[in-house]
């Protein structure tokens, strides 16, 4: 595990606004993955997925509140 890359990944997620968090969830958590070949140069990202979920929860304060009428 490359700790510098992990720190970079964490920093991106910590600083992300709501729209970037949405992009991160789709681009890093979803989509077709090639077995054994994914995430070259993105080491450590998998470790922050759980953190991403917590932040997505907070993100609704930033997104327009569609449901509050």
């Amino acid at each position, binding site marked *: 595990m490359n700790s510098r*890359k992990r720190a*970079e*990944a964490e920093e*991106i997620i910590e*600083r*992300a606004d709501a*729209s*970037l968090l*949405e*992009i*991160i*969830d*789709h*681009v*890093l958590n*979803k*989509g*077709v*993955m*090639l*077995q054994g*070949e*994914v*995430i*070259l*140069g*993105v080491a450590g*990202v998998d470790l922050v997925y759980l953190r991403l*979920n*917590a932040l*997505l*929860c907070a*993100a*609704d304060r930033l*997104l*327009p*509140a*569609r*449901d*509050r*009428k």
Partner: protein
Amino acid sequence: MIGLYAIALGAPPELTGARGEPLRVLRCGELELVHGEVPPPLSAEALRAHEAAVRRIAEGALACLPARFGCCAEDEAALSQLIESRQVELAEALRLVRGREQMTLRVHGARPAPPAAGGPGTRYLEQRRRAMTLPELDPLRSALANLVRAERVEGHSEVASVYHLIDRGGAAAYQRAVEGIRLDGLRVAISGPWPAWSFAPEIEP
């Protein structure tokens, strides 16, 4: 090394990747593997650029399954080899997403109460079932029944994510329908339309 952007049907010409490089299309049976240079190092800009490149493919293609950021292969031959054994499931997934796009809901406050009846095992299984299916969202499902073609749900302790596949161009109607529904104790944030990120075939362990 090459980087994969999407698996498509009828990909449009003159696409560009996250580095602004021209993308190439490699045929693998009926699949079109859209690839370019290796993705740039991880950064917020790189993630946005990957998303934007996939979006350009999805907007012009008949069908598009996005590739996760960071998918690489040694060369075209290696890429074909990685995809070949999964051609059937990928073709099936392309049929599902054809002419469609994705809407994403983040549902806050979905904490199903544990059922009172049954032994500990039954209660556990019922709780798991509810976390996977979110029956609290059934009123929303009824309101969206005419618009939603497929659904994926991911339950988490704090926020549940619901991914809906809708016909292209249906985002405004979808949004109006979601806004028109009041769900007891739940708050819902909508984003989209997206390429069909959440409708790629399940990843093998």
